[in-house]
């Protein structure tokens, strides 16, 4: 029941009264959050969500539980907003463990002065992404802080999911000979955010790749139940996941640069700023490691899903001479370089 925003407050902006526990807060919860998230009258009466254990047990033998806090500037960008990120991020963290997401919580920290219309767009995007992922937002909380204490809006989501008995996915489970795949182009989110900030004055058609990956993961696991490792490549990019993979398994991850799928626009942004798409953030990309004998089946399964059309095999796991593990990038010139993670975020090179 998409209600109107009138009656929530003055001037269409959040005030400290919306966090004060009185009627303004009740109106905000009813007209913004419940109207978007609630799926039945019973869902809203209690202080906590209640999940039926028997129903969960029927779907698997392990409960997966994860949490993530979301801050982004700008709050809205081509391809989504902070709400899309908050739902997709937590759904994806569950999915890459082989879990079917069941329910999410959402906690909001709102800055005094935030436009209600913007909050509504964020909440609607969350409802939409949740529906796309087939997951419910069952509990939540809101706090309002003075305007200098928060940059517009922060969201924290937690999620639970259920893992089927036959799936055993672990970052440390990679084996010599395994093949590394990604489900599509690298760095779309990071490049889109850089351009959306506006201070580059670059005109691009780039969109964030933000998407819930659970149906893609289900398709992949249906085709290849024996996926060894899987992780979504968010901050730190695909490079970050490859480094974790190498460290956890003690193996050498050998990646062929020419096989990395990168959009020409992303490549262009990287050229101008001296950045590497391997390190740029993604919000709808995962890295999967499968036995070589199943690689083609895994690739075909991913490519048959709308979120995996540009999926590619990008490398292999090999024994590491020192047993330390590492990531090696082989370029088209036959040259090889060792991939090292930067200590912080990549900073643009200008001069």
């Amino acid at each position, binding site marked *: 029941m998409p209600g109107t925003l009138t009656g929530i407050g003055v001037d269409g902006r959040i005030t400290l009264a919306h966090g004060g526990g009185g009627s303004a807060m009740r109106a905000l919860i009813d007209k913004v959050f419940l109207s978007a998230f609630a799926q039945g009258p019973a869902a809203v009466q209690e202080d906590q969500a209640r999940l039926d254990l028997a129903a969960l047990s029927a779907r698997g033998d392990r409960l997966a539980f994860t949490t993530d806090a979301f801050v982004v500037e700008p709050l809205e960008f081509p391809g989504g907003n902070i709400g899309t990120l908050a739902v997709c991020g937590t759904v994806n963290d569950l999915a890459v463990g082989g879990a079917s997401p069941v329910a999410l919580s959402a906690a909001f920290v709102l800055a005094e002065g935030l436009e209600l219309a913007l909050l509504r767009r964020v909440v609607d995007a969350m409802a939409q992404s949740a529906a796309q992922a087939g997951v419910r937002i069952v509990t939540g909380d809101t706090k309002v802080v003075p305007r200098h204490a928060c940059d517009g809006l922060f969201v924290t989501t937690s999620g639970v999911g259920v893992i089927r008995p036959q799936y055993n996915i672990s970052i440390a489970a990679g084996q010599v000979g395994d093949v590394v795949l990604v489900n599509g182009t690298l760095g779309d989110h990071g490049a889109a955010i850089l351009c959306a900030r506006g201070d580059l004055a670059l005109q691009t058609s780039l969109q964030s790749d933000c998407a819930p990956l659970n149906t893609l993961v289900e398709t992949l696991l249906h085709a290849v139940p024996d996926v060894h490792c899987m992780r979504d490549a968010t901050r730190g990019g695909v490079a970050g996941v490859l480094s974790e993979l190498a460290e956890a398994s003690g193996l050498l991850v050998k990646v062929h640069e020419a096989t990395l799928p990168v959009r020409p626009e992303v490549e*262009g942004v990287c050229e101008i700023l001296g950045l590497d798409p391997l390190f740029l953030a993604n919000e709808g990309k995962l890295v999967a490691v499968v036995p070589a004998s199943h690689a083609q089946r895994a690739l075909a399964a991913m490519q048959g899903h709308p979120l995996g059309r540009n999926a590619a095999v990008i490398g292999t796991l090999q024994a590491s001479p020192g047993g330390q593990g590492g990531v090696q990038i082989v370029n088209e*010139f*036959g040259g090889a*370089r060792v991939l090292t993670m930067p*200590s912080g975020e990549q*900073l*643009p090179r*200008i*001069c």
Partner: protein
Amino acid sequence: MRFVKEFRDPHLAEALLARINHVAERIGHRRARPVTVMEVCGGHTHTIFRYGLDRRLPANIEFAHGPGCPVCVLPKGRIEDAIALAHRPDVIFTTFGDAMRVPGGRGSLLQARAAGADVRMVYSPLDALALARANPERQVVFFALGFETTAPSTALTILRAGAENIGNFSIMCQHITIIPTLRALLAQPDFTVDGFIGPGHVSMVIGTDPYAFIARDFRRPLVVAGFEPLDILHSLLMVLRQIEAGEARVENQYARVVAAQGNKAAIAAIERVYEVRAECEWRGLGQIAGSGLQLRAEWAGFDAEKRFAMQPHHLADLEQCRCGDVLTGRIKPPQCQSFGRACAPDHPAGALMVSSEGACAAYYEYHGVGEAA
């Protein structure tokens, strides 16, 4: 991507490498010592390591990695000065992303920001000027750094600020020029570099004529080069051919961007706004006469050092760092005892570990620590 991919074609690279091998073999018959070619520019250093070009060269050809990374050669004392300025409550301190991580004596601008200083990353000095317009109650300072590549955009920003009479904008000028430093290197008696790959972006501004003395007075060939792997290999081949023929000329491989006379409008802007500093300190190399730029008296109103009566710090480079020896081609980065131990990209002790265009950081990033040359 057009005009980029073409210059990364692996088949053409193989063809160039085959020719480089032939020339190197013929040169090798005539001399015992390997041929050392210095790429002056940090952008070239980055390309060489990024594509592993150094590992594809014949045994008797070596790259020496030159001083052309403006971030690397930022002296520690200047970073201290910048941080002190950034901590003033009335100041918004702006600079390029590259400079944010450079450590001074007690931390970087990034750390100063975490400690409460208002430090902002900009992509152009014009962004800093826009901040000044938008914040008339604050003083906006731009940390202007780089070679002739970035000096014109700072100069045009000063001219704009002057025309608009913007009173709350100033620059901390750390613009430097490459020619005096090349001359100082060449004048060293044990400088064994046989030829140069000349900087592309700097030459786009200054042209190729200012390098004439290198061929004429020091009998070394120099080839101005672009930044893609084929540009580097092609330029190396051109240098080697000159060495084989016993010639020393200035050639331009990067003619698609660089004109012999450079960019006249950019040169005019530089000359209108700056004058040469008597002395300028380079991290790793020390004081080099005539290698820095400062604002002319006419524009002194935009000089942050004058506006804030700054007292410049001087901090010596660490003794165990051998940046100077790497910069002059005497040793390779792993031959420095600090490399990968006391000095690594997340805690750089020496200049060349500071930016990914520095020879040591590029070595560390692309070869790893365990590997010797």
